[in-house]
């Protein structure tokens, strides 16, 4: 049975269509694997019965030669997506017991395409974090271990840490993530998988628990660029229920994947060479540049002068939006309630007990930067800088077709590290946040291993709505990198 888990999403899809395997077999194998990898704490909720029922329905359709683009493929869903009748927590105590009576647009599209839901994955609480350390359900753990220090548990990154751990640990064929400041790309880099953040507006936000509305974007986390392309095609599309959803039609994402980069102009932003960048990050970046050049791309030095302010901008805007988005968790209509003598006390008790430390920090910062007398200095200022950051990208994309940069400034760190220093934790997002602020699509592709034997990703950024270009360049990198390393735990699986 083990071999079945080696199939990637496209491989499994083809095998299902050919009748070589059944969705029930495949799903059962993944459910068994989920059971076997419980230590990863990748899932908050496993929906085994539902998965098997969906698989059987898929098998019936496949037997008739019917079925959607993802028919019978077992995937995991970040627990930020509302799933009808299935516990949805955002990894927060405050959503205790919450079972939505509705299905998010993105997951509904996935089920419509025939995908099978394995369960809901762990994450940083309300998607706020870069380590998965802020989950009320405990940290998800990276399947990878450092070569010299196999006893130390490492973070899978965050906030989509559970999705990343599940895909990397073969406990899901693929998974949905959401990316607000790097929450798909950074964990993809830490766990050696592919993660794609589409252009803002590509995937409907309807039914996804909001963190920062102007930045949140759902995307696929998968083993290969091809897998991610197939999955993103099913997830994306205009949704009239989301006012910020993009009406632009998504081009075919798989047709041009293998076109290569010959003749493309690839921008290398000078400002991403940050002070104190570890040499191995610099090295993998240089390697990526060499691969693309060797494949026929023209390498162009570009400047994104305001990216150095992106992190500060992000840590004003995202908490500001979050402080307002999270006001609805008040113990009245769903989730946790901690009683109090008055309405105000009930609110404060509920929210004080229901939100973890990082969420509380961000609510307080967000509340402060929006408050009377500080709005102009913080929030408005940050939105102005955001304009400049976007402008930098627009100018750069006048000269280049895509941008290549590291995904994260380091490899995966130990569980519990950085937890006492929020600012240090925020620095993990330094390379991912600029594109988030600009709304641009980006993908992280595993490119190599660090000195400690841990995966390192490279990031491809593209023009607004130019996902085909991002995936095309990502595919070229993937080919050149030929990243075949696997976490030790997968030996024998």
């Amino acid at each position, binding site marked *: 049975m083990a071999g079945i888990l080696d199939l990637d999403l496209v491989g499994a899809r083809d095998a299902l269509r050919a009748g070589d395997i059944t969705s029930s077999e495949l799903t059962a194998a993944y459910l068994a694997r989920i059971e076997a990898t419980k230590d990863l704490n990748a899932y908050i909720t496993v929906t085994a019965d539902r998965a098997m029922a969906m698989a059987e329905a898929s098998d019936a359709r496949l037997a008739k030669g019917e079925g959607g683009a993802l028919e019978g493929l077992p995937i995991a869903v970040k627990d930020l997506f509302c799933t009808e009748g299935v516990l949805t927590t955002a990894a927060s105590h405050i959503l205790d017991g919450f079972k939505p009576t509705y299905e998010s647009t993105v997951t509904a599209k996935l089920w419509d395409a025939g995908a099978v839901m394995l369960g809901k994955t762990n994450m940083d609480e309300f998607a706020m974090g870069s380590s998965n350390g802020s989950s009320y359900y405990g940290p998800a753990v990276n399947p990878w271990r450092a070569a010299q220090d196999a006893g130390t548990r490492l973070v899978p990154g965050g906030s989509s840490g559970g999705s990343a751990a599940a895909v990397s640990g073969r406990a899901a064929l693929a998974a949905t993530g959401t990316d607000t400041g790097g929450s798909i790309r950074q964990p993809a880099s830490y766990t050696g998988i592919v993660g794609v953040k589409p252009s803002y*507006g590509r995937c409907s936000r309807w039914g996804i628990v909001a963190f920062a509305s102007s930045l949140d974007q759902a995307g696929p986390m998968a083993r290969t660029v091809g897998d991610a392309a197939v999955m993103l095609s099913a997830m994306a599309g205009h949704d009239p229920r989301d006012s910020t959803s993009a009406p632009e039609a998504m081009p075919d994402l798989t047709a041009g994947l293998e076109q290569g980069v010959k003749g493309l102009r690839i921008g290398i932003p000078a400002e991403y060479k940050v002070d104190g960048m570890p040499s191995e990050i610099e090295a993998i970046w240089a390697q990526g540049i060499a691969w693309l050049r060797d494949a026929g791309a023209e390498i162009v030095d570009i400047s994104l002068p305001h990216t150095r302010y992106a992190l500060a901008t992000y840590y004003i805007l995202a908490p500001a939006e979050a402080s307002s988005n999270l006001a609805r968790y008040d113990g009245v209509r769903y989730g946790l309630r901690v009683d109090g003598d008055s309405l105000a006390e009930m609110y404060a008790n509920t929210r004080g007990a229901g939100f973890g430390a990082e969420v509380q920090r961000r609510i307080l910062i967000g509340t402060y930067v929006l408050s009377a007398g500080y709005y102009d200095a913080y929030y408005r200022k940050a939105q102005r800088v955001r304009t400049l950051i976007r402008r930098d990208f627009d100018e750069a994309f006048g000269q280049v077709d895509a941008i290549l940069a590291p995904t994260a400034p380091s490899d995966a760190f130990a569980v519990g590290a950085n937890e006492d220093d929020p600012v240090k934790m925020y620095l993990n997002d330094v390379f991912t946040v600029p594109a988030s602020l600009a709304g641009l699509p980006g993908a992280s592709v595993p490119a190599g291993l660090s000195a400690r034997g841990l995966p390192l990703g490279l990031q491809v950024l593209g023009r607004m709505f130019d996902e085909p270009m991002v995936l095309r360049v990502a595919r070229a990198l993937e080919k050149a990198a030929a990243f075949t390393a696997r976490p030790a735990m997968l030996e024998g699986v």
Partner: protein
Amino acid sequence: MSLDKATVASIATLARLRVPDDRLEPMVADLNAILGFVEQLEQVDTASVEPLASVTGHSLPQREDAVTDGGYPDRVTANAPDPAGSFYAVPKVVE
């Protein structure tokens, strides 16, 4: 700019968060670290720059005026911690 304990306590009240006394002190330190970090934006000249309104450049889509939703009070209160018939209940509000 540096926040003191009293300011953080009042922000917490505004945000309806009960922050116990023993957690207030570390929270003050964390918030000040974050504010210290974001203060670098002061260096950016934004005098002639408009705040970003949208990354897609689209304007607000508008739906037709039709009753297409509602009519399911059971779904509205399905997850309520303290439902009262079709109502939500909260501690009495004194006007």
